[in-house]
């Protein structure tokens, strides 16, 4: 029998190991419960079984996220298990719980990238956004441990009105502390961040364009720090596309596993029950990946059924509509235009060379 590559390989699993978080950030696109306790709702054995099964579906990478993934009680055991198969492991964390033991575990498991969220170089601003006093100090401690370890780490900042003037400071801090890259994310209207939108804490479109231009023209050419401004590809300069490539919604090649074991389209099932695809205690990952009607429909319909400006964009085959989970969260329609692209288009700010009528 020929070993044939699956048509739609499940390249990555996003494991939402905890639905709790030890911070309470205003911009969180999920709404995890605030807790500093370790969590073990997701059985390690069941997780191992699912990951093993996903290998034959094409699995290459595993992202550990949450809530706060370092609250997961069996994290070190899970990392050991993932290292056995040499998966590309990445972790998204607020960095607070990074200690020497955790660093050793990251090193011995050959973790490829650790992304740490930091929203300001100022303690007051960061702690204000994070909702917990002292969080800046603890995150910085974690970042210093990462820096000393030689592990590859990235700093992620979510742009909002409160920290819009903080970018130069964050760039300087990122360089000083030895981060490999800095990712700048616009605020997403989902989960707890919906409140931030309602309070107009998001940047106006022209502010976003202005800041993006400044980052690109003035700050992006740092010797040891790569800077990614996470805008849809239609807004990136040719130079940026050549340098960093273009982001594509990975919905056709990823699956999320939530803290209670539910499979989900990306992580959006955490906030929207309709996009939960069954639980790993009741259904196999193969069954979900190969036969779930929502996933099958997506494979048939992306990018052809994209609506609004996404339908007309010349990058739609590369971009696949930026983030389908976010589009669904906003509109309950997996083919709705990405909110930011549509807002830019409606405001006459979408680059005219990048869409067709």
């Amino acid at each position, binding site marked *: 029998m020929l070993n044939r590559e699956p048509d739609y390989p499940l390249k990555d699993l996003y494991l939402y190991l905890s639905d709790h978080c030890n911070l309470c950030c205003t911009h969180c696109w999920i709404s995890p419960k605030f807790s500093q306790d370790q969590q073990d709702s997701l059985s390690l054995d069941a997780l191992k079984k699912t990951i093993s099964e996903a290998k034959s579906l094409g699995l290459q990478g595993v992202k550990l996220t949450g809530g706060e993934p370092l609250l997961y009680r069996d994290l070190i055991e899970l990392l050991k298990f993932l290292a056995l198969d040499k998966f590309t492991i990445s972790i998204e964390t607020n960095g607070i719980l990074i200690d020497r033991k955790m660093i050793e575990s990251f090193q011995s498991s050959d973790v490829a990238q650790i992304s740490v969220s930091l929203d300001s170089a100022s303690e007051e601003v960061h702690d204000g956004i994070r909702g917990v006093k002292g969080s800046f100090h603890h995150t910085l401690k974690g970042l210093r441990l990462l820096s000393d370890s030689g592990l590859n780490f990235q700093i992620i900042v979510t742009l909002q009105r409160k920290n819009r003037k903080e970018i130069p400071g964050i760039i300087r801090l990122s360089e000083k502390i030895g981060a490999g890259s800095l990712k700048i994310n616009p605020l997403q209207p989902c989960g707890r961040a919906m409140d931030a939108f309602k309070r107009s804490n998001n940047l106006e479109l022209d502010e976003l364009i202005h800041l993006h231009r400044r980052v690109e023209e003035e700050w992006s050419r740092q010797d040891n720090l790569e800077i990614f401004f996470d805008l849809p590809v239609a807004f990136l*300069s*040719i*130079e940026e*596309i*050549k340098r960093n490539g273009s982001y594509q919604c990975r919905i056709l090649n990823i699956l999320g596993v939530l803290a209670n074991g539910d499979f989900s389209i990306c992580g959006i099932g955490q906030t929207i029950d309709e996009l939960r695809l069954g639980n790993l205690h009741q259904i196999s990952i193969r069954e979900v990946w190969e036969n779930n009607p929502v996933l099958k429909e997506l494979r048939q319909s992306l*990018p052809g059924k994209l609506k609004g400006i996404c339908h007309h964009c*010349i*990058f*739609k*085959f*590369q971009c696949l509509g930026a983030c389908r989970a976010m589009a669904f969260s906003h509109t309950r329609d997996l083919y709705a235009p990405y909110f930011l692209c549509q807002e830019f288009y409606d405001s006459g700010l979408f680059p005219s*060379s*990048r869409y*067709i009528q």
Partner: protein
Amino acid sequence: MNSRSIYLTRRFVRNPSVVYREEEDGAFLFDPETGNLKYMNPSARETFLMLNGQEDVKQLIHHLLELYPDVDQKQIKKDVGSFLKQLEEDKFISSLDGK
């Protein structure tokens, strides 16, 4: 006649269904049927815009040598050859003379 001289006598036209989008630092070709998207730097853009079905590749190279007198002739021939081959494979252009 060897294969190289056959190549030099070929004439190409742009596929009419392909969308051409010019930008300050290059241009994009987009085929709405296949989803193929290609970025062209300014010199590739110049080359693409010369494809009108009237002149063959040899004449096209001659024009480019006039435009870029400091660039090595062999290099231009090589670059133009691989650029046109790629465009043809991706169906952004087609040959008027067959292969």
